[in-house]
Every structure is written in structure tokens, then in C-alpha cells.
């Protein structure tokens, strides 16, 4: 089930009413039952996988916490989690038997074994076991609470990745107040706006630029690459708004996953603002242990940490040349930033008046867009083709209309031109006012005008086909 599907949106109010009717200390039962329905409704076997892995993690955590065969059990449980992740993400159950699919994108979303959300879920379990093994947290005593932590419907499909010590205490007695309800609804509306109006309207533009369109100039190709980054941002942050807003209705506060990343002044700042919960997971469980172990090597330790973190992050997103290049680009960017840090801090002090910050934002955004070209390309050939096109004449061989407008606007028909104009204008306008919109919601100001405007846009300009297809669900 998806957070935006009709069955979900239909059932949600009933679940909320039942939730409010039940005693505070027993409300987790409602959340657990609905989470099981959420996971098992479309793919019952997915529920079995989730229950199996949760039981394994719960009991492994319990014994590791007691110190009984802690090291052996820890490695056994971690290897099993990884094996399950590999099996579910990269192995296809074809007629001829199981075989690995190390293709460019790596995912088999049509495979019977595929379970949406499993990779997020596995990382959560691994983090839980590592924290117990190294004495950072106590193992959870209540199996049912742990099952809910693992399978909580609002964050199950694509995160945010939650830490046990933050989420579990909230389930013991969740009592939403008026602000939770109001802010939750506003975040859901904002998420719907970002997904249905912005991301879904930008999607066909990206689709065309990444497909083989003859006569396309470098300007159109560059615009397509930029638009993809913006589409990805609206698509995933819109999903996160839905997840965070839905959880807030039940008094549960999930981790914020984005903090205006497109205005970052460096790649390291970008990674502190983009997919925050995933990057903080990789930072705590991969980057810090590697750099800490090698810290006597100075900058080399930092670079080794960056390499391990981004190679693993690349593999987590998918196995293939394109994800490898995406990882290598970010390793390069961050290594440069790490070595040049003190020099750059000096520069920022010397150039006053916002010029340095402005140039830094533009440079960072361009570097992110370039790396995302490899993130979006279906294979190496498509990425190569697009890079060649970036070297073409600005308007291609056929001028402004055929070399720029037509590729971006699906042949240049009036309806497609309208979509192009609306999508670009609304996206840029929203990026300009985004911080203000969030501040209004977070400070508890109930702006009926803001809600009304967003709802009107959703009903008039929302694109409702392929409504369930969030980009990050494939990871």
C-alpha cells in the first residue's frame, strides 16, 4: 500500500478514530495492526519476510545485550540481514531458478521476492544491533513494540530511517494534541502538492530529455538534467512530508529528512540537508568507525571514510556503472572539500556581500545536477549519450523551437507547452517561498489561505496518473 493510494486515504480516518477511542497505553495495538494490514494487503509474503526479520533482530538484540555469545551472534545476525537484503533486492526468481541481476539499475521490482521498503528496514535493524553490540542502547524488552518500530506504516516504504531510541519511546503512550493534528494535515497537503503538482508535472519533461530525442541542443539537455534534480527533490521530500504528516496525526514525530538542500553552499552541507536520516546512518555506522580507526592518518583517514561511505551508499541505491560513477563523483567532490576546507573558510571571510555564498550555491547545485545525471540514467549508454548532447550547439542543429522548446515540451504542442510553463514557473516560485511555507506550518500558525491555495492547485493542476510511483520506492 502507498501513503497516497485511495484505499490508504480511505481507511486512514477510520484508523485515526479508533486510535483516539482506545486507551493511551494501548494505542500502539491499533498502529501495529494497521501497519500489518498496510504491508500485507498487497503482498502477504512481504509481511512474512518482515515478521521473520523482525523476530530475528529482536531476539538477536536480546541475547547480544545479555552478552551471551555476543560477538558470534552479532555477526550471524548482521550477515543474515545482508543476505536477505541481497536476496530481496538483487536476485530474480526466474523460471530457471534464482539468479543475480547485476544490471545497471540492479532492481527487480517485478520479482516475487521484492519487498518495498526492505532496504530501509534492513538498515534500521542493522543500526539497532550495532547500537546494542557497542553498548549505546539497551535491547527493547517488548516484542510487540519492536515489531511496531520495525513496521510502522508511515515510514515503512521509504523512510525516514528511524533510530530505536527515538521512535520506540513514542509508541508507549502516543497522545496527539491539536498542533499535531493541524500540522500533520498541513504537511500531508504540502506533500500532495509537491508530488502531484510539482514532481508529476516535471516528470514528463525529464522523461523526454533522458530518452533519445533527435536534434536536441545542449541547453535543452542541461535543462533536463537540472529539472531531474528538482523533480527528485519534490518527489522524495513530498513523500517524506506525507510520511511525517501521517505520523503526526497519531502524535508520532518522525525525523526530518530534508532541510532545503538545493540552496546548499557546499557538497558537505548538501549531504547534511538531503536524505538526512540515511546519510546520518551512513555517517554513524560506516564513516565514523572507518575514520576513527584510521584517525592517525589525518586527511587520508577522512578520504578513506568518504570512499567507504559513498561506495556503500552507491551499492545501496543500485549495482551498476551509473551508480558507481555517481558514488565516485561524490567521493571526488567531498575529498576536495575536505582537503580545501580551511582555504575555503578563508575565502568566505574575504568576499563579503553574499557573492561568495551565491557562487557557492550555484556551483554546488551544478555539481549535484551533474552527478544526478548518472543517478537517473537507466544505463551507461544513456548517460554517455546525454553527456555528448551537453557538448552540442546550445540550440542543436534545428534552432530554438525544435532544438530547445520541442524536446522539453513533448513536440511543442500547446498542451505540452502549457505543462512546461506551469511546471517550471510553479517549481521555481515554490523553491523561493518554501522556507516560509514550512516555517508557517512548524510555528503552529494555521494559515487557511495557504491550505486553500495548496488544495486549489492540487485539484486544478495535480497530475493523478501514476500517483503511487515515488522514485525512492525502488530503493
Amino acid at each position: 500500500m502507498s501513503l497516497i493510494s485511495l484505499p490508504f486515504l480511505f481507511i486512514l480516518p477510520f484508523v485515526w478514530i479508533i486510535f483516539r477511542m482506545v486507551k493511551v497505553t494501548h494505542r500502539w495495538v491499533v498502529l501495529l495492526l494497521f501497519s500489518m494490514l498496510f504491508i500485507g494487503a498487497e503482498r502477504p509474503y512481504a509481511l512474512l519476510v518482515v515478521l521473520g526479520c523482525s523476530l530475528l533482530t529482536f531476539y538477536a538484540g536480546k541475547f547480544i545485550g545479555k552478552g551471551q555469545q555476543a560477538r558470534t551472534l552479532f555477526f550471524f545476525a548482521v550477515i543474515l540481514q545482508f543476505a536477505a537484503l541481497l536476496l530481496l533486492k538483487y536476485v530474480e526468481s526466474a523460471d530457471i531458478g534464482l539468479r543475480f541481476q547485476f544490471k545497471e539499475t540492479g532492481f527487480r521490482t517485478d520479482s516475487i521476492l521484492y519487498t518495498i521498503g526492505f532496504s530501509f528496514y534492513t538498515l534500521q535493524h542493522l543500526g539497532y544491533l550495532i547500537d546494542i553490540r557497542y553498548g549505546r542502547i539497551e535491547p527493547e524488552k517488548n516484542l510487540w513494540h519492536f515489531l511496531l518500530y520495525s513496521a510502522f506504516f508511515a515510514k515503512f516504504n521509504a523512510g525516514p530511517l528511524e533510530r530505536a531510541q527515538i521512535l520506540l519511546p513514542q509508541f508507549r503512550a502516543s497522545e496527539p494534541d491539536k498542533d499535531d493534528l493541524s500540522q500533520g494535515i498541513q504537511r500531508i497537503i504540502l506533500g500532495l502538492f509537491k508530488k502531484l503538482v510539482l514532481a508529476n508535472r516535471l516528470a514528463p519533461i525529464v522523461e523526454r530529455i533522458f530518452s533519445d530525442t533527435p536534434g536536441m541542443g545542449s541547453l535543452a539537455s542541461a535543462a533536463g538534467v537540472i529539472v531531474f534534480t528538482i523533480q527528485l527533490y519534490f518527489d522524495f521530500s513530498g513523500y517524506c512530508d506525507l510520511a511525517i504528516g501521517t505520523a503526526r496525526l497519531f502524535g508520532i514525530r518522525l525525523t526530518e529528512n530534508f532541510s532545503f538542500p538545493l540552496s546548499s553552499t557546499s557538497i558537505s552541507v548538501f549531504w547534511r540537508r538531503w536524505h538526512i536520516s540515511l546519510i546520518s546512518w551512513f555517517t554513524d555506522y560506516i564513516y565514523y568507525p572507518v575514520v576513527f580507526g584510521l584517525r592517525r592518518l589525518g586527511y587520508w583517514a577522512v578520504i578513506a571514510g568518504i570512499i567507504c561511505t559513498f561506495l556503500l551508499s552507491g551499492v545501496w541505491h543500485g549495482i551498476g556503472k551509473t551508480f558507481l560513477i555517481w558514488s565516485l563523483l561524490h567521493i571526488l567532490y567531498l575529498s576536495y572539500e575536505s582537503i580545501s576546507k580551511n582555504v575555503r573558510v578563508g575565502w568566505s571571510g574575504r568576499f563579503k556581500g553574499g557573492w561568495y555564498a551565491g557562487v557557492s550555491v550555484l556551483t554546488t547545485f551544478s555539481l549535484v545536477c551533474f552527478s544526478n545525471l548518472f543517478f537517473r540514467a537507466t544505463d551507461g549508454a544513456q548517460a554517455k549519450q546525454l553527456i555528448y548532447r551537453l557538448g552540442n550547439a546550445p540550440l542543436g542543429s534545428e534552432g530554438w523551437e525544435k532544438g530547445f522548446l520541442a524536446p522539453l515540451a513533448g513536440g511543442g504542442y500547446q498542451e505540452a507547452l502549457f505543462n512546461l510553463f506551469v511546471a517550471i514557473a510553479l517549481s521555481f516560485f515554490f523553491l523561493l517561498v518554501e522556507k516560509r511555507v514550512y516555517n508557517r506550518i512548524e510555528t503552529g500558525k494555521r494559515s487557511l489561505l495557504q491550505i486553500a491555495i495548496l488544495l486549489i492547485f492540487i485539484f486544478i493542476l495535480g497530475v493523478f496518473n501514476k500517483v503511487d510511483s515515488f522514485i525512492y520506492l525502488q530503493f
Partner: protein
Amino acid sequence: MSQTLEELNLVFCDVFRNKALVLSPDSNASTIEGWDSLTQMLLVAAVEKHFGITFTLNEVMGFKNAGDIVTTIDASLSKKVCR
């Protein structure tokens, strides 16, 4: 300013190449320019070398501000003296 904080201030000035940097127990990554995950372990290595102590990974991951570092340094130094 405690003796440990003063010495820690010198290490910070050296790592961040900023002689004007003034540390308080509340100083953290958002108040000191350049203090982030890229520089955190360089700082840890420099502090360990300066005070002649060794941190554990759990201690380092618990550092939220300069005050946390000072507390851990003092605890490590007193353990060292006891030995």
C-alpha cells in the same frame, strides 16, 4: 575558563587555523565555522595527541559540544592519574 577548556581552545585554533577562535562549553558545530563530520576526527586525533589520551568511538560519537569534550578529557586524565 577552565584549564582544560583553555588548552582545548589552542587545539581548536590549530585545527581550524583560526587564532581568533574563542571556545565556550556550549560551542558546537553550528557555532564554529568548519566543524563538521569532515573535520571531527582530525580534531579528535589532535586532542588525543595534545592531552596524551585515547578516546573510544562511543565517547567521540557522544560529543555534541566543546563542554562534552572537556568532560571526557578530564575523566580520561583523572583515570590516567589513578593508574
